[in-house]
């Protein structure tokens, strides 16, 4: 039964008619991801549409046993990277790849309280200021709850790079959030 196929896991023995069943539930997440990548509603719509057309075309070559969701995100991201905004980003962005960032934590952490009290807008601003390469890895890990392996497949980077980017991204998020003066936080805001 087509409807029982779970889009999140690995899939096998698929036919074209299964594509819609698998792909449409991912649409909302893909759109959100595309908005964060491109920063533009129209461009995000185009990216999503192009992703669906490309992935349907390539569905017959979709390898059994690989992760469908990671595959879709990979197509979306590659589509974005070849778009105008994406090319600009590639030309201007110098990613520095280092090992795992050092995590320095003091014994007492009023930071935990500060993070808890951060309102949605503040956290969104923190995500927005991340370099795109860090932003996408955080979105896939924390929002899409992808495993590192899935993220590595989606972004076409080694798993070690996933970990180092994630660590650095979180460090930057944390620093951004705790550096904001208290009056900008709305206590108890959703």
């Amino acid at each position: 039964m087509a409807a029982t196929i779970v889009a999140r896991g690995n899939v096998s023995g698929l036919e074209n008619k299964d594509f819609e069943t698998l792909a449409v539930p991912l649409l909302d997440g893909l759109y959100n991801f595309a908005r964060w990548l491109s920063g533009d509603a129209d461009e995000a719509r185009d990216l999503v549409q192009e992703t669906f057309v490309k992935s349907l075309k390539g569905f017959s070559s979709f390898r059994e046993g690989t992760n469908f969701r990671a595959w879709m995100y990979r197509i979306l991201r590659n589509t974005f990277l070849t778009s105008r905004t994406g090319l600009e980003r590639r030309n201007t962005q110098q990613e520095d790849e280092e090992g795992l960032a050092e995590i320095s934590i003091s014994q007492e952490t009023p930071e935990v309280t500060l993070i808890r009290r951060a309102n949605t807008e503040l956290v969104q601003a923190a995500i927005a200021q991340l370099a795109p390469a860090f932003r996408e890895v955080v979105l896939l890990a924390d929002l899409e709850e992808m495993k590192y392996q899935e993220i590595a497949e989606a972004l076409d980077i080694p798993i070690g790079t996933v970990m180092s980017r994630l660590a650095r991204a979180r460090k930057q998020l944390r620093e951004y959030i705790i550096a904001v003066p208290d009056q900008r936080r709305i206590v108890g805001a959703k």
Partner: protein
Amino acid sequence: MKSCEWQNKIGLYVDGELEPAEEQAFAGHLQSCAECSAAALEQQELKKAVRVAAKRFSAPPELYASVRRQISPKESTRPWLRWSAIMASIALLAVVSFAWLSRPSAPSTTVAQLIDQHVIMLASVNPYDVISQDPHTVKPWFQGKVPFTFNPAVPADSRFKLLGGKLVYAQRSPGAELVYQVRQHKISVFIFQARDVHGQASDSNLAFTVNGWQQRGLQYYIVTDAAREDADQLRALLEDANRS
């Protein structure tokens, strides 16, 4: 300051990426290391905050429609195939009209309406009439608005979280829409009087999972893009809650 050997594992622990044995060892370590436990807590809070804040944009409903148009099978150009398709459509139309006329609330219409409602809720900036995770707030809100009562409570330790509720109409009858969350997925549960709104929910409705059942004179439908097992589980919990 001598840094703890576990420090590099904190992210892995928070992301659930440690091997079971290592995870257990780390959890044990957290009991004794204030530094690591504070850091792990902080990362957990950060992850939670990001999860909430990052779900910022919802795909507009028309994007669903245009994507579906794009990916649905193309019409054949061979004339005999086209003719047979037209003949088949006429036959289907006759069958559907018969079914429609002999039964005022054709199931496919009801389910399609409810899927629409669900999509509208997902896209809306004001998805709920009553926002509360507390069933004792949500339930009384429907008093006087719908001519029946129900129990929206699911066990607190279940994976499902009540988000709120909304008054909806189907087949010109009032009903309740309850919205639950599981992982990142929203689930709509629609409740109507079974004599007003009924009909079988089929398995594959535009890739949404739809699960319908009747209980004590009420018709329930679950509509979600979450996995079928999630819908089955929520159904079992609601059936339990509304049994007595």
